[in-house]
């Protein structure tokens, strides 16, 4: 039940954000400070999600096999390896480390 609420909320909210601009149109723009904040929400949120996915386990801060995997993925991305390949490389390193430890 809760999952359906989540799906509906995400679907409606996404459509709303995609269509406000086109529907209002007429060359109108949101106020400049708001536009600047909106442009910064993505890097803030994504950075927080990276930290959560790499260094946390529930409420604990940890450094485990994931950190190594993410580091490998980051280096790969830095050298312009395609995202999917970088994901597989990071995942492989992480899985191998878990096997070894």
């Amino acid at each position, binding site marked *: 039940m809760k999952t359906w609420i989540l799906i509906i909320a995400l679907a409606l909210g996404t459509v709303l954000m995609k269509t406000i601009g086109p529907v209002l149109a007429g060359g109108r723009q949101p106020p400049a400070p708001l536009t600047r904040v909106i442009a910064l*929400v*993505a890097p803030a949120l994504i950075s927080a999600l990276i930290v959560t996915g790499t260094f946390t386990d529930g409420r604990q801060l940890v450094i485990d096999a994931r950190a190594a995997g993410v580091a490998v993925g980051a280096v790969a991305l830095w050298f312009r390896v395609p995202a999917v390949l970088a994901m597989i490389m990071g995942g492989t390193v992480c899985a191998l480390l878990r096997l070894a430890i």
Partner: protein
Amino acid sequence: MPLALPIAAVGMSFGILASPLLGAVAPILMSAVVWSGTAQFAALSILIPGGGIALAASAGLLANTRFLPMGFAIAPSMTGGLLRRFFTGTVLADASFVIGHRGGGRFDIGALAWAFPVQWLSWVGGTVAGVAGAAAIGDPRRWGLDVFFPVFYLSLLLPELFPARAPRNKRSITVAGMAAAITLLLTPVTAPGVPVLVAAAAALIGLRPPRQPNAQARTGDEA
């Protein structure tokens, strides 16, 4: 369409990671109607460590606020009535935004709209394949698949902070650093999911006018 394969691959990893938690139908339906990798991964990142539905929905929607400026950016290139503009808006996506961009703030709306069916089919098809394969794979952690989340996010963040053909985006780097610090500080003391949302508030430093005059012109070009 060279994008179809990577989109399907990311969709597949979403299916694999989501189905142990959400079952078979929900991830596929989510891909079909939400159709946004960033939002779906963000929501899932909150749900997996035990965050609630409200937090997951908020994270997913915050991840999609980037569509607001994108919608405003394509609006002047659109023709037709309200309904037509509405439906063109709904098929907007990161990749189609880039595909339709013709430089100088102009967009080829036809190219943008026609990118939709290909992307949608690869995304949903990939999710179906992921859900189907999830049972065979078992615990995603065994294969290191949980690392897909942060690496996928890095693939979105790095081009934003260090664009290929522009100087590095100092303000985004500051905000990303602040958000990372907030997350590390709050994780031990708050419920799962909360640190991520509080960290998003780092974006509020955007209220201050930028120091370089050309930084503002970039904001409409997020992709």
